[in-house]
C-alpha cells in the first residue's frame, strides 16, 4: 500500500486505472469511454499538480523518491526507482497537461475503435511519465521502449493513407537507436554493479576512450528521437500520417524524451565525452536549424511544414543543452516546454480544420480568417509563438539559448549561435508564408467548397489552456526558470 501511495508511483500508473475501466466497457459506448479517458487524464494532471506542491524548487537534488529493490538477485541491482528534480519537473507537468488536451481533441475526430484508441493513449501516458521519472537505467529503458508500442498502434491504426509505412518506419528507426543504448546500459550496469543513475554518476571514473563509445550509444537513441539532423527522416512521415492527437503527443512529449535523455544521461554520465563532442553536436544542431527551416518553407502540406519546423526548433534545444552553461541549459529546458505548447497548438488547429475539409494542402486554402475569425486569431497567436515573437513564450526560450550559445566555452565559437539566429528569421518567413496563404487573400477553392464553421466551444476549450501558457511564459517566465535553476547549477558543477 505504501508502495502505491507514493506520489510519483501514483502519477505514473494512475492512467492504468482508466485502462482497466475502459477494458470492461462496451466498445459502442463511445461517449462514456471518452469521458472515462478524459477523467483519468484530468485526475493524472491533478496528481501532477499535487506533485508540484510537494516539490521544493530550491532543492537541486532528486525529490519524492520512490525506491524499492526490484530485481535484486544474482548481482542484478535493479531498483524500482522514480524521482523528480528541476530538470524533469516541467516535462512531467507538460506531459500531464498535454494528454487531457489531446484526449479532448479526439472527441469528434476519432470515431473508429474509440475504445482501443483510448487504451493505447492512456498506456502511452504511463510510458511517457515513466521515462521522465525513472532513475534506474533498466527501468528507464523499459519505459523508453514501451512508449513505442502504443504510438506505433496510434499511427498505424488511426493514421492517414500511408500509415503502415509510417508506423513501421517510426518503430524501426527508434528501435535502431535504443538497442545501442541498451548495450551501453548493460555495460554501465556491469561495470558499476548497479543500474541506479545517481550512483553511477557519483561513481564516475569511466575511462575516456570508453566514455566516447558509451556517449555515442546513448546519443544514437536520443538523437533519433529528437530528431537531430541527419536522423530526422522518420519524423515527417510519422507526423503527417499520425492522427491529430498522436501528432500533438509526438511533437509535444515524445521528441522531448530525446532532448531530456541527453540532459539526464549523456551530460552527467560522460563529462569528458560531452565536452569533446559539444562542438560537433552544436554543428549538427545548427545544420538542423537551418535545414529544418528551409525545408519547412518548401512544403505544400501544412502538417509537414510544422513537422519540419520541429526539426528546426529542436535544433535550438540541442544547441542550448550543449552550450553547457546555465543560460543555455535552462533556455533549452524552457524551449522544450515552449515547443510542446506552440507546436502542440499548431497541430491541434490544423487538425480542427482538417476535420472539416479533409485536406492539408496549403495552396487550396485562402481567406480562412474572414470565415473563421476565432480560428484565425488563435492560429496567428500560435504561429507567432512558434516563430518566437517577443512577448510570447518562444522568444524567451530561443533568446536565452542563443545568449548561452554565444558565450559558451564548450562550443568554442560564437558562429554557431550567429548562424542559428538566422533560423529565427527563417522561421518567421515560413510561418508567415503559411499564414498568408491559408488565412489571408481571396478565398481558395476548398474554402469556398465547404460550408466552414468557426471553432466551437469544445475546440476553443482545447487550445485555450495552451494560449494562456504561451502568454504567461512570454510575459513572466521567472517562475519557470526558478523551478529548474538549482538543478541546472548542480548539473554544471562538473563543467
Amino acid at each position: 500500500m505504501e508502495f502505491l501511495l507514493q506520489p510519483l508511483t501514483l502519477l505514473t500508473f494512475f492512467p492504468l486505472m482508466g485502462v482497466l475501466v475502459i477494458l470492461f466497457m462496451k466498445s459502442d459506448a463511445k461517449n462514456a469511454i471518452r469521458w472515462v479517458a478524459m477523467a483519468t487524464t484530468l485526475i493524472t494532471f491533478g496528481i501532477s499538480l499535487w506533485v508540484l506542491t510537494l516539490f521544493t524548487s530550491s532543492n537541486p537534488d532528486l525529490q519524492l523518491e520512490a525506491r524499492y529493490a526490484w530485481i535484486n538477485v544474482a548481482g542484478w541491482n535493479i531498483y524500482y526507482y522514480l524521482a523528480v528534480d528541476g530538470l524533469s519537473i516541467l516535462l512531467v507537468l507538460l506531459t500531464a497537461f498535454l494528454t487531457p488536451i489531446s484526449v479532448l481533441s479526439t472527441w469528434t475526430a476519432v470515431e473508429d475503435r474509440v475504445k482501443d484508441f483510448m487504451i493505447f493513449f492512456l498506456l502511452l501516458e504511463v510510458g511517457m511519465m515513466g521515462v521522465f521519472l525513472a532513475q534506474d537505467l533498466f527501468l528507464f529503458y523499459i519505459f523508453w521502449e514501451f512508449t513505442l508500442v502504443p504510438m506505433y498502434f496510434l499511427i498505424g491504426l488511426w493514421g492517414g493513407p500511408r500509415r503502415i509505412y509510417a508506423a513501421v518506419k517510426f518503430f524501426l528507426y527508434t528501435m535502431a537507436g535504443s538497442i545501442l543504448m541498451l548495450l551501453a546500459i548493460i555495460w554501465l550496469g556491469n561495470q558499476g554493479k548497479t543500474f541506479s543513475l545517481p550512483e553511477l554518476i557519483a561513481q564516475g571514473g569511466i575511462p575516456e576512450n570508453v566514455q566516447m563509445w558509451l556517449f555515442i550509444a546513448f546519443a544514437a537513441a536520443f538523437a533519433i528521437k529528437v530528431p537531430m539532423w541527419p536522423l530526422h527522416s522518420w519524423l515527417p512521415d510519422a507526423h503527417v500520417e499520425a492522427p491529430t492527437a498522436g501528432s500533438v503527443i509526438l511533437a509535444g512529449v515524445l521528441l522531448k524524451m530525446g532532448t531530456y535523455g541527453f540532459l539526464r544521461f549523456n551530460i552527467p554520465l560522460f563529462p569528458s565525452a560531452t565536452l569533446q563532442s559539444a562542438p560537433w553536436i552544436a554543428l549538427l544542431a545548427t545544420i538542423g536549424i537551418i535545414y529544418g527551416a528551409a525545408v519547412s518553407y518548401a512544403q505544400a502540406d501544412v502538417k509537414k511544414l510544422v513537422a519540419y519546423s520541429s526539426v528546426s526548433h529542436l535544433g535550438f534545444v540541442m544547441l542550448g543543452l550543449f552550450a553547457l552553461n546555465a543560460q543555455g541549459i535552462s533556455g533549452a529546458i524552457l524551449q522544450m516546454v515552449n515547443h510542446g505548447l506552440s507546436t502542440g497548438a499548431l497541430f491541434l488547429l490544423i487538425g480542427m480544420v482538417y476535420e472539416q475539409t479533409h485536406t492539408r494542402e496549403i495552396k487550396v486554402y485562402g481567406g480562412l480568417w474572414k470565415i473563421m475569425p476565432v480560428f484565425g486569431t488563435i492560429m496567428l497567436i500560435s504561429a507567432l509563438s512558434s516563430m518566437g515573437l517577443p512577448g510570447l513564450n518562444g522568444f524567451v526560450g530561443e533568446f536565452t539559448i542563443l545568449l548561452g550559445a554565444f558565450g559558451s566555452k564548450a562550443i568554442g565559437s560564437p558562429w554557431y549561435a550567429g548562424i542559428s539566429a538566422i533560423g529565427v528569421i527563417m522561421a518567421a518567413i515560413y510561418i508567415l508564408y503559411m499564414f498568408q496563404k491559408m488565412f489571408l487573400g481571396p478565398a481558395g477553392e476548398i474554402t469556398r467548397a465547404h460550408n466552414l464553421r468557426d471553432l466551437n466551444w469544445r475546440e476553443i476549450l482545447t487550445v485555450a489552456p495552451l494560449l494562456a501558457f504561451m502568454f504567461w511564459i512570454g510575459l513572466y517566465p521567472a517562475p519557470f526558470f526558478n523551478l529548474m535553476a538549482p538543478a541546472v547549477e548542480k548539473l554544471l558543477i562538473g563543467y
Partner: protein
Amino acid sequence: MQLDYKDFFIILPLTILIAWACVLLLADLFIPKERKGITAFLAALGLVVVLGFTIAQTGHQGTSFNGMVILDGFSIFTSSLILLSGLLGIALAYGYIKRMGLERGEYYTLMLFSVTGMMLMTQASDLIIVFLALELLSIPLYVLAAFARPDLRSEEAGLKYFLLGAFATGFIVYGTALVFGATGTTSLSIIFGASPSLLLTIGSALLLIGFGFKVAAVPFHMWTPDVYQGSPTAVTAFMASGAKIAGFAALWRVFATAFPTPSVDITEVLWVLAAITMIVGNLTAISQTNIKRMLAYSSIAHAGYILMAFVPYGNKEVMPVSIAAGLFYLFSYVVTNFGVWGVVIALEKFEGAGLGISDYAGLAKKYPALAAAMTVFMLSLIGFPPTLGMVGKFYLFRAVIAGGYSGLAIIGVLTSLVSAYYYLRIVVNMYMREGDPVIERETWLDITTAVTAIATVGLSFFPQWLFLLAGSATLKWF
C-alpha cells in the same frame, strides 16, 4: 560395482516416465478409437507426476552408475522445463490431431519417450549417455514429424529429419571416439583434466557440429525450415522447444564441464557460429510468406542469441552467467514459443491452408483477444518490454558484454532490429489490414494461449525468482 537405492533415486523421474510410457503403450490398445483423449490425459498425468518428482529432487546432488549420470540444479531446471514443454505440447496437440484426423494413441506415447530422452540428456555426464539420450529423444521425433502420413510434406519432413539427424549423430559419435582417443575416457569429469591436444580439439569440434545440428545453428540448420513446415504443427511446437532445450543442455554440460581446455580455439568458432546464426536466421526470415517457415528461421535466430551468450564459456567468471542467462532465455522462449504455435494452430486449416502470413489480415477486428496475445508473443520475440523476452535478452547481452565480446553484442542487437521487421509484419497484418480469418476454437488451445500470454507479460514484472532459479541451476567447473 554395487548399485544401491541412491543410484536409482538420481534417475527416478525418468525411470517413472519411461515405465509409464510403456504402460501407456499397452493401455492404449484397450482405449476405443473414438476416445483417444483418454491417452492424452493419461500422458499429461504422467508428466505432471514426474514434474512433481523432479521438483522434489531440488537440493539433491550426486552422480550414479559410476559417474555416468548426474543430478544437479542444472538437470533439475532443464528437466522441469522439458516436462513443461511436454505438457504444453500435449495441450496443443489434443484438439489439433483430432481435427486433422491424426488422432492415434501412439502420438502421446512417442512424446513421452522423447521427453524421457531429453531428460536423460540433461543428466548425462558421460559422452556415451549423451549419445544414448540423443537417440532416445530423436527417434520418436522422427516418427512424429512424419505422423501426418500419407501427407507428402510430412513424410518428407520425417525422412529429412531422420537423415540429417542421423548424420549429426554420426558427428557426435565420431567426436566421442576422438575424445576417447585423446583422453582414454568418455567421462566428462575426467576429460576436464586432460592435457590439451589437437585430437581433443578436433573431437570437441565434431561434438560442437553435432549439437549445432540439434539446436539448429547455421550452417547446420538446413533441415529446420522444411521439417518445421512439413511436420504437424503441434509436433513442430514441441520439437522447437523440447529439442532445443535438450540440445543446449548437452552443449552446455559437455563444453562447460569437460572442454575448458580447448576453449581457446572453440571460442572463436563459437563466435562465428553465433554471429552467422543470428544473421542468417533473421535475414532469411524476412522473405518468408509461410508462418511456419518464418518461425523456423526465427527459431534459428534465437538459437543464435543463446549461442552468443555462451561464447565466453572459457572464462571461469563469466561462464556461470552465460549459462544462467541461457537457461532464463530458454524458459522465456518456451513460454512464448508455445503461445505463438497455439495461435498458428488456431488459424491452420486442412492441407496447410491458413498458414500464410497474409492469412492473419483482419484478425484483430474479429478476434481481439487472440490478436492481442499474438502481439504480446511477437513483442517478446523481438525482445520488447513489457515481456519476458526483453528481460531474457537483457540477460543474454549482459553475459556477452561481461565476457568482453561487445562486437558480437552489437551484431546481436542489430539482428534483433531486423527481426522486429518481420515480427511486426504479423502485427501489421492482424491490426492494419482488412481480412476475414476464421479460427478454430478449442478449450485447451485457448487455455494454452491465454496462460502463455499472461505469463509472458506478467513474469516480466516479477522475474526475481526465475533469476534466482536460473542462477542457482547454472553449471560450475569440476
